[in-house]
């Protein structure tokens, strides 16, 4: 069963400029993205900076409002729900942010951070709030006796654990993890990834896991969406990604990633140029300015995302 179905999600941010501060254009952050996430599944989202990963994550849980498109959560279309109808869904959908340094209010102790939401949503009776917090702390590998400390008294990895505890405080069933380990050192990254994997199994969580690091995505996710300039250009099973990736951009990402093996005498794939600005995306295929396989049709028409084999969707004219 799909827990989440996203249909044709679009987000354009207005851009203002000039002396009158009029709207002079728009940033095409997310351009008609559709997918499903099954219950208990980890769906990865990978792509380079600015391709719309965080925007997509925030749209699904309505931290920002979409320009158009639908999100069906456990059978209910939630993008049109009013404040009160949305509340139970707000509890069920949580987010862990990339930057453990800025995503926690520096003036609140860990205890106060966690308490706020627990009390607001009446997760447990008032008499059990403290013990609920202690359990959460232990669950994410922090000492409950440290709960009266402030975020700055913790290391980066510990702060990310606090962020995870905050997301778990409301017993959610879905978590958007927006680059939860990108700011951490590798040894700490491994600790936090293991923690998330354990919690996912233990609590049966469903996750949207955003990362720019394909190695991390491969390790952690069941399926992956590859995004480029606000579009999903490929969707596939993570296990297949090395042998089966078909989209030229996915292949470039794989080839640009250095391998941790000095004997692998492999030249890095070098793509020309930069990602175009989402303020003025190219006509036709979004990858047209950098693609090694480009043909004339690519300049004219955006290739649709079509299923090539079961569960494997690709948006490229050159892929049979």
């Amino acid at each position: 069963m799909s827990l989440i179905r996203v249909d044709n999600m679009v987000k354009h941010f207005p851009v203002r400029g000039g002396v009158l501060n009029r709207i002079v254009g728009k940033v095409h952050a997310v351009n008609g993205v559709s997918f499903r996430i099954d219950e208990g599944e980890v769906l990865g989202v990978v792509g380079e900076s600015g391709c719309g990963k965080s925007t997509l994550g925030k749209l699904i849980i309505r931290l920002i409002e979409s320009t158009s498109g639908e999100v069906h959560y456990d059978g209910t279309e939630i993008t049109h729900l009013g404040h009160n109808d949305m509340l139970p869904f707000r509890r069920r959908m949580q987010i862990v942010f990339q930057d453990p340094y800025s995503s926690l209010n520096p003036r609140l102790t860990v205890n106060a951070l966690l308490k706020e939401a627990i009390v607001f949503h009446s997760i447990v009776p008032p008499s059990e709030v403290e013990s609920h917090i202690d359990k959460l702390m232990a669950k994410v590998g922090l000492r409950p006796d440290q709960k009266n400390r402030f975020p700055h008294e913790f290391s980066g990895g510990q702060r990310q654990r606090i962020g995870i505890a905050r997301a778990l405080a409301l017993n959610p069933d879905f978590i958007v993890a927006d680059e939860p380990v990108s700011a951490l050192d590798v040894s700490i990254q491994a600790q936090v990834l293991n923690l998330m994997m354990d919690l996912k199994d233990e609590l049966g969580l469903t996750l949207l896991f955003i990362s720019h690091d394909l190695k991390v995505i491969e390790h952690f996710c069941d399926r992956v969406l590859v995004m480029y300039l606000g579009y999903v250009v490929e969707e596939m099973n993570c296990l297949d990604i090395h042998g089966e990736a078909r989209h030229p951009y996915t292949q470039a990402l794989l080839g640009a990633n250095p391998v941790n093996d000095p004997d692998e005498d492999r030249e890095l794939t070098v793509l020309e140029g930069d990602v175009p600005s989402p303020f003025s995306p190219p006509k036709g295929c979004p990858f047209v300015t950098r693609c090694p396989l480009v043909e004339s049709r690519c300049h004219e028409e955006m290739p649709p995302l079509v299923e090539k084999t079961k569960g494997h969707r690709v948006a490229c004219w050159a892929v049979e």
Partner: protein
Amino acid sequence: MTTPTPILRVENLTTSFRTDDGVVTAVDDVSFNVWPGESLAIVGESGCGKTVTSKSVMRLLPEYTSMIAPESKILFGGVDLAHADERTMRSIRGAKIAMIFQEPMTSLNPVFTVGWQLDEALRYHTSLSRKGRRERAIEMLRLVEIPNPEQRVDEYPHQLSGGMRQRVMIAIALCCEPDILVADEPTTALDVTIQAQILHLMEDLKKKLNTAVMLITHDLGVVAQVCDRVIVMYAGRVIEKGTVREIFHSPQHPYTKALLDSIPKAGRREHGKRLPTIEGIVPSLDDLPEGCRFEARCPLAEKRCADEEPDIVPHAFTERPVRCHFPLNQT
């Protein structure tokens, strides 16, 4: 035939800072050589002293709060940079040893054009005419594969993408044909496809100009891809040295091995398995243990490790330097 000699010898470098919590030693008795034309990697997790090492070599540390110990030596071209005066350093910095940093936006001056910033280095270190310098600036931009260099030379940093800014930094660093390029996390702020462009460019230029590169990074994938030799640091200490193959295939220090193990492997189908981790965190510099600095996190630690810090000594079999009482690969 002359025997090759290192172009840079760092001997017993110890760099400390005065802080509110007392004096902390960020780099502690670090020694290494840089050979002509090689790529040397300095790796380790954040805070282990990589940047302080490179800034010590360039003498770019805060003047009043930092100090390099009197016994430290940084020998370059017959001069000891560790104790050289600022005038000497200015003639070396940029001309003979150049540096690029992690964040290209903060190291380029936003109010001057790209051409002006290239010109600054050329004006100071060469005797070229104004016209000659402009030609050279354009030529350098072309060398680092900036499209339309004739036009870009008159643009400002904010008009360039992150990858292009890093290319400009490289152009500035290389315009006086230095002997050594110190690159501190030059690709960390960049996306992988842009990182690949920059690494490719650096390798290419290294071959063309025979510049030695000191590459500072926490990314072991980058090291495997582009470096010849590796120095691994932990909490201010060098804990292992070797060729890139030796480090990756037969790490001797438990930390090096744990670090390599904790990276998710691409394409190895270890999907869904727990990663091997290093428990705990790096000790704080103002609260270092008596014994081995890795002791609290080391799976092989024994009583002796807590009491006595190991020296960096040749391994019993490989003779490769390692700082551990019980190094790996003993049999």
